[in-house]
C-alpha cells in the first residue's frame, strides 16, 4: 500500500509539472476507521469507513492553487492537475509561496497501525460499566471510540518523498452529572492512545474529569464582582494557548499585522517560569507529525522559553513574506513545562479565586481581551476548593495574564495530544449576579 501511494503522489506531482507547474506537491492517503458510538448511555452505532484523500498544489510563476479530492485514479489526477493550474492562473503572483527545498526522505511507522476491534469493544464495555459503578450520577451523553489506520505519502517537485503508516485509538466522551431533575453542565474529555493494555479510565484525566462533574450538580452563584486568582485545569489551558498561537505568535496575527507580539521576538512576553513547546516528536505524543505540510521534517521547538518569545508558529509562506524563521512543525502538540509545587499547595495559597474546568467565551480579541462564562468550575476560598459555580463570568487580557502567573503545578496531564499542567493567574475579574 505505501509503495503504491508513494508512486501515486509522485505521479500527481509529475502531472502538475506536465500541466505547467514550476513547483508542485501532492499528498495521498488511504484510511480505514472503526468506530463505536454510545448515545444517551447506550451503544447505538458501529461504523467502518474507507476513505481516500488526494491534495494537489501547484505554483506557477509565483501563483498558487490547490485542489483536493477523495479519489486518485489516473483520470482524477489528470483532471485535478488541470483544475489546479487553472486555479493558480487566477491568482496574483507572490514569490513567497514555496515547498521544502531539501529532501530528507523517510518512511515512518507510528503507533499501532492495525486495530484489535474485539479488544477495543471490550474496553468500551468496560469503560461504560466502570463509569456506572464508580460515577453513578454521570450520564454518558455521547461516547465515540475509534481506531483509524492511515497510509499516507507526500511528494514534491524538489524530491521530497515521505510516507507514514500509522494507527491509534481515540476516546472522546461527552457527559454530565444528574440527580433527579438537577443537572451539571456537560463536559468533554478525551485521550489518544496506541495501546489497549490499560483500561481507558486510567488514561489522561478521564477519571478526574468524571469525578469533578459529579460534584457540579449542585452549584452556587458568585455574589457580586471581585478580582482574584484563576486556576486553569489542564484541559482548559488548551483554549488559552490556541489564542496565543494563532493571534499572537501565529500566521493570522502576524500576516494581518495585528499581533501584539509582532516586534517582540527574543523579548520577554511572559513570566520566566513559562515555557511552551510544540513537540510532536515527544515520546508522550501519540502519532505526532513527522513531516510538515510543506515537506520539511518536523522538529520540536519552543515558542516561549523561560518567558521569552523564542519563535513564531509560521508556515513557509508567512515566514518568507515576513522575513522571519518558520516554525519547525505544523502541530498543535502543546507541552507546557511543569512547575515545582503540587496543585494542592498552589490552591492552599489562594485567598479567593476560581478553579476553571472549561471556558465558554467569545473569540478573544486580537488585543488579548477575553470574557466568558466559567463552566465546570469551583470557587476557591481561604485556600480550599469550595462549591461548584454557575452563571459566573471571568474577564481579563491574555497578554497581561501571562505576566501575572501565580504558579504552575508539578502535575501534568498526558492525553496523547498534549502535556499540560494546572496554571494559576492573578488579577482576573470574576463576577456573578
Amino acid at each position: 500500500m505505501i509503495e503504491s501511494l508513494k508512486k501515486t503522489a509522485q505521479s500527481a506531482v509529475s502531472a502538475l509539472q506536465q500541466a505547467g507547474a514550476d513547483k508542485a506537491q501532492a499528498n495521498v492517503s488511504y484510511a480505514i476507521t472503526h468506530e463505536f458510538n454510545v448515545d444517551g448511555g447506550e451503544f447505538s452505532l458501529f461504523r467502518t469507513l474507507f476513505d481516500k484523500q488526494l491534495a494537489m498544489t501547484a505554483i506557477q510563476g509565483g501563483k498558487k492553487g490547490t485542489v483536493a479530492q477523495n479519489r486518485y485514479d489516473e483520470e482524477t489526477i489528470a483532471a485535478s492537475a488541470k483544475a489546479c493550474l487553472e486555479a493558480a492562473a487566477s491568482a496574483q503572483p507572490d514569490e513567497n509561496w514555496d515547498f521544502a527545498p531539501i529532501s530528507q526522505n523517510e518512511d515512518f511507522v507510528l503507533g499501532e497501525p492495525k486495530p484489535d476491534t474485539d479488544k477495543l469493544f471490550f474496553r468500551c464495555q468496560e469503560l461504560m460499566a466502570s463509569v456506572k459503578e464508580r460515577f453513578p450520577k454521570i450520564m454518558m451523553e455521547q461516547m465515540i471510540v475509534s481506531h483509524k489506520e492511515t497510509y499516507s505519502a507526500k511528494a514534491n517537485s524538489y524530491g521530497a518523498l515521505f510516507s507514514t503508516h500509522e494507527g491509534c485509538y481515540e476516546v472522546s466522551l461527552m457527559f454530565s452529572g444528574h440527580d433527579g431533575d438537577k443537572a451539571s453542565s456537560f463536559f468533554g474529555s478525551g485521550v489518544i492512545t496506541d495501546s489497549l493494555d490499560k483500561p481507558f479510565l486510567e488514561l489522561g484525566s478521564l477519571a478526574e474529569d468524571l469525578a469533578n462533574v459529579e460534584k457540579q450538580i449542585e452549584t452556587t452563584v458568585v455574589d457580586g464582582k471581585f478580582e482574584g486568582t484563576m486556576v486553569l485545569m489542564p484541559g482548559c489551558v488548551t483554549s488559552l494557548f490556541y489564542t496565543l498561537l494563532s493571534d499572537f505568535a501565529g500566521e493570522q496575527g502576524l500576516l494581518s499585522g495585528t499581533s501584539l507580539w509582532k516586534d517582540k521576538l527574543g523579548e520577554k512576553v511572559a513570566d520566566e517560569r513559562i515555557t511552551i513547546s510544540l513537540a510532536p516528536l515527544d515520546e508522550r505524543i501519540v502519532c505526532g507529525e513527522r513531516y510538515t505540510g510543506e515537506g520539511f521534517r518536523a522538529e520540536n521547538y519552543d515558542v516561549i522559553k523561560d518567558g521569552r518569545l523564542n519563535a513564531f508558529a509560521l508556515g513557509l509562506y508567512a515566514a518568507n513574506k515576513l522575513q522571519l524563521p518558520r516554525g519547525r512543525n505544523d502541530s498543535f502538540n502543546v507541552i507546557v513545562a511543569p512547575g515545582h509545587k503540587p496543585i494542592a499547595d498552589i490552591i492552599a495559597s489562594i485567598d479567593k479565586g476560581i478553579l476553571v474546568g472549561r471556558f465558554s467565551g467569545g473569540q478573544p480579541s486580537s488585543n488579548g481581551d477575553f470574557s466568558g462564562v466559567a463552566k465546570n468550575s469551583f470557587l476557591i476560598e481561604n485556600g480550599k476548593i469550595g462549591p461548584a459555580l454557575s452563571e459566573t463570568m471571568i474577564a481579563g487580557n491574555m497578554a497581561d495574564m501571562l505576566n501575572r502567573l501565580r504558579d504552575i503545578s508539578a502535575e501534568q496531564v498526558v492525553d496523547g495530544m498534549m502535556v499540560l499542567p494546572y496554571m494559576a493567574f492573578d488579577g482576573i475579574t470574576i463576577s456573578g449576579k
Partner: protein
Amino acid sequence: MPRAPTRSFGPSGRAQRNLNRRAVLLNGALVGNVRTEQFGVSARVYENGVYGFSSTAEYTDETVKDVLKAASENAAFLAKHAGKGKGPHKAMAPNRIVTAYDLNDLEQRTYIEFAQALDNHIASKYPDLVSRTVVITCDSMEKLLCVSNGCDGHSIMPRSYIYVMMTAMGADGKPVELYKVIGGGYGTFDRNYTKPEDCFAEIDGLYDRIQQKAKDGVYPEAGTKTVILGGILSGMLAHEAVGHTVEADLVIGGSVAGPCLNKRVGSELVNLVDFAHTAFGQPTPLPIYVDDEGTAATDAVLIKDGILVGYMNNRESAERFNMVPQGNARAYLFSDEPLIRMRNTAVLPGKSKLEDMIASIDDGYYLLDTNNGQADTTGEFMFGVTFGYEIKKGKLERPLLDTTISGVAFDMLKTVDMLSDEMIWASSGMCGKKQPMPVGMGGPAVKCRVNIGGR
C-alpha cells in the same frame, strides 16, 4: 452524479458529493485558493435497536455491495453484544422527492476577481485600516438517497457567501475588529452576487461601525441588564440556547428540556419553530424537503405561546417520545451517519416596533453583532458580542467594545416582554455536533434581561 441505486440497495443508502470553493485575500495577498470535492457512498442498517454503518470513497455497483455488507456485519455485531430488543421502525409511505438540478460550478477566477475588486475598494477608500480580509466561500451538498422504508430523494443544497473582516486601531492603541457577511445565502455565487459594486454599501457600513467602535467604544457595565438582542443574536439564541436542548438525542442525554415538556419555558410572547423548507410564505434560507432517513420534512414547532411543545427527532427518538418525525436527521458528508440536526430555527416575530422597544429602556443595551455563541445542555448560554450601543433614557448612546452575554435560556425567555415585528435570517455558519452542518437561524429584535460581562 450517478443514477440512484435500486431498492435492492438495502435499508438505507446514500451517494453524496460535497463541493467547496474558497478564495481568501488578507491585506491584498491571496492566502487561500482552494477547490475541494468529497464524493462517495454509504449504507446504514438497523437491527435490534442499533445501527451498522459503512462508507467508501468510490461509487460503483461493487462498492455499493461492499458497504452494504460491512454495514450489515457491523449491525449484526453490535446487535449481538448490545442489542436493545427492538423491532424495525414504523412503516412510512414510500415517495420520491426530487429537488436537485444541475449546479453551475464556476471557475476559480470568478471568485478571485470578485474578491480582488472588493479588496481594492476597501484598500483605496480606507487606507487607515490595520488589516482587511475578504473571504469568498461557496459550498454545495448533493444527495441521492434510497431507503427501504420511507422516501427516496435527490436534493442539492448550494450556498455562497462573502465575508469581510476589518481591524482598526482603537483609541487606547489596541486593535478592534468587526466582520460582516455581505449578502449571500442559498444558491450558487452567480445567483447571489451580480457585481462587486453592489456590495460596496454594506462594506462602507461595516467601516462606519468599526470607526465608531475604535473611536468611541466603551465596555458595558457588568451585571444583569435589560437589553435588546438584534435579530442575529436572537437567531443564535434560537439555535444555540434553545434548539440544541430540544434535539431529542440531547434530551435523552439529560438536557434541561427533558423535564420541561408541556411546561412554560418563556413568556407567552415567545414562539419558536424549526422550519423545514417554507416560512412566512417564502423559501427558508436553507430549505430541506427530505432528511437522510427518508422522512419528508415538515416544520417542528418547539415553543408555542411560551410552552415547550415538542422536540426535534429522528425516527428512533420519535418512536421513543411518541412524536412524529419531521425530517431532522441529517448527515454532512457521504461518510457521516444522520444525526438529529436543526434546519432553519427561528424565534417568531411579535408586534412591537424597534424604535418603541428602544424608547422603553431607561438604562440598557442594544446588542447587534456576534462572533460566536455556545450553550450548555442546561440551557446556560454565552454569546460573544462585537458591536452594540448603550441605551440611556430611551435613546441610543455610545457604541460598545467586545463583551459577552450569558444567561439560562428557559429563565431568560420568561423575561421577554417585547418582540419586534421584523426578523432577520442568517445561514452562513456551520453548526458543530460531531459533524458540521449548514443551518439557518433567525429572529426579531427581542427585549429581555441577560447577564453582560463588562470587562
